[in-house]
């Protein structure tokens, strides 16, 4: 094993498998190296082939290259790729399964619908060429897909007449109809504006629960990752920096430099304690502290809700504030304070017990408040986003 292997292995967290021996369990084994020019990608990670795994990192970190290597489009790929024991790439054994024989479905950033076919034709293209296999894949029918993604009104439209969001939906449908054993989504939201993103998010959230295809979701947006993924593989400069459950990975401190540019955030898992009909609120319990959010109709008392809190929506105080319009104030301990001397900002991390919050405050405020690591602080949450996945 090379020194790089060791460095990377220790950076990984829960679930990182270092053993390369093939086991027929449901997992994607990746030990792949792609080099071109000054950039080289080397990722060694066993990923459970279940749920949604985000491949997360800044632009140029190798996310798309990793995806293309899984698809078989990177001719220079070396190493080993296997899904559930089926080997797609084993350069030592001379195995390199061509792209059209790998049971992977994918969507591309730009959609890549066939312009000479209408949406129905694009779906048919995938449908005809995929062989229904026993099990989950066989249950995917064209009608299911059309229904799940509301493609009915688009079927006789040509791709160039579709909006960006409609194009992504059609592309998702086409990928599903290839009845893949692994679904790769390459930044499906990146080409869309905020409103279109909001339009397509519910479809993405519903996708995995409905079709159950193991999914790799490539993204550089932490809010998408927080909402969609069960676990996260963090890439930077062509290496795996961390791997583990979404909540733990996004809390990790050493990710700060990676995520700062992309709207850092923390994910909290809280339990529904009571619904308030009068003010249309839902009260949540977070390690004994109370939070209120706009009423969550689909969650029953006792169920857990996942909350995304962006660091720019968190303010800090050294005393519990007198009444304000901000409903949610959590007490905790300041555990780190990163000051970026080149900007006006500092990134603070607050420990709440079993969760950590991040706050982006100005360095001036940090100085005025006399914030010190280890001292108690109060976090004021201006806004909280809710993962609506549960209960769909």
């Amino acid at each position, binding site marked *: 094993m090379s020194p790089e292997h060791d460095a990377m292995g220790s950076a990984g967290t829960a679930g990182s498998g270092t053993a390369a021996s093939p086991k027929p369990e449901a997992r994607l084994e990746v030990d792949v190296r792609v080099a071109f020019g000054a950039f080289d990608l080397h990722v060694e990670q066993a990923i459970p082939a279940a749920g949604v795994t985000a491949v997360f990192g800044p632009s140029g970190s190798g996310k798309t290259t990793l995806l293309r290597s899984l*698809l*078989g*489009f990177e001719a220079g790929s070396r190493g080993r790729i296997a899904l559930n024991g089926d080997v797609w790439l084993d350069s030592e054994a001379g195995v390199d399964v*061509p*792209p*059209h*024989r790998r049971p*992977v*479905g*994918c969507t*591309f950033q*730009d959609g*890549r*619908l*066939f*312009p*000479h076919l209408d949406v129905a034709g694009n779906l048919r*293209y*995938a449908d005809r*060429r*995929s062989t229904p296999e026993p099990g989950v894949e066989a249950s995917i029918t064209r009608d299911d897909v059309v229904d799940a993604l509301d493609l009915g009104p688009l079927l006789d439209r040509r791709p*160039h007449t579709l909006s960006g969001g409609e194009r992504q939906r059609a592309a998702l449908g*086409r*990928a599903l109809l*290839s009845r893949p054993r692994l679904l790769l989504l390459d930044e499906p939201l990146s080409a869309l504006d905020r409103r279109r993103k909001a339009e397509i998010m519910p479809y993405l959230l519903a996708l995995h629960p409905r079709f159950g295809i193991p999914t790799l979701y490539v993204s550089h947006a932490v809010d998408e990752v927080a909402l969609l993924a069960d676990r996260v593989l963090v890439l930077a400069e062509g290496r795996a920096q961390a791997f583990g459950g979404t909540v733990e990975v996004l809390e990790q401190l050493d990710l700060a430099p990676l995520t700062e540019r992309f709207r850092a955030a923390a994910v909290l898992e809280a339990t529904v304690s009571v619904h308030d009909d009068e003010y249309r609120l839902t009260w949540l319990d977070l390690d004994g502290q109370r939070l209120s959010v706009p009423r969550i109709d689909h969650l029953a008392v006792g169920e857990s809700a996942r909350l995304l809190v962006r660091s720019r929506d968190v303010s800090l105080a050294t005393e519990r504030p007198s009444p304000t319009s901000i409903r949610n104030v959590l007490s905790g301990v300041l555990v780190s304070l990163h000051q970026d001397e080149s900007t006006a900002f500092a990134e603070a991390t607050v420990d709440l017990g079993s969760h950590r919050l991040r706050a982006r405050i100005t360095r001036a405020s940090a100085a005025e408040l006399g914030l010190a690591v280890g001292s108690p602080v109060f976090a004021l949450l201006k806004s909280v986003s809710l993962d609506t996945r549960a209960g769909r």
Partner: protein
Amino acid sequence: MSLPELGPLWLSLQLAASATVVLLVLGTPLAWWLSGTRSRLKPVVEAVTALPLVLPPTVLGFYLLLLMSPRSWLGGLWVEVTDTTLTFSFAGLLVASVIYSLPFMVQPLQAAFESLGRGPLEAAAALRASPLDAFLTVAAPLSLRGFLTASVLTFAHTIGEFGVVLMVGGNIPGKTRVISIAIYEHVETLRYAEAHTLAAGLLLFAFVVLVFVYVFNRRLPVHVA
């Protein structure tokens, strides 16, 4: 005005149509290979393909004549197999036309294939389409304009060839006397009226074909990847 015999016109159309069909079959895979290869041979093959554009027709015709003569390996083989000579025959004209018009088929097709980019083909591969399947169902339909342009250029260029035909085919009525040779012959023998009829007919034909192509080309949907 005396009517010229229509034999040469008919022969030219036959030759041009045959050359276009043969070149569609041979030129398409060549253009496809050129558009996708990273081989170091690519510039060499491209240069060979483009040679007929820059060589004087007489040079090309001269070497083709040597190649097709019964004493060369190709001409000799042809005599053995068919019992006829390749030179001064329609088959010989066809071989010469295919080589002479090669760049007019390959270059527009190669440009069309290259402009597709890798996107549509990767999308097809990810949907389990084999390379041949992806070519037939995605690349070819998206390159319709390229096929149309290449076919029309090949056809028209073959109709208009003169030097190579004269070198390889000579001037045998009904066999190798194509329209351009017939016009030349009429002019040489001072039968200007017949030359005029044929020449004006060819001019009109070329114009009509080109108008048709431009109109049709505009109707074909533009595919933006």
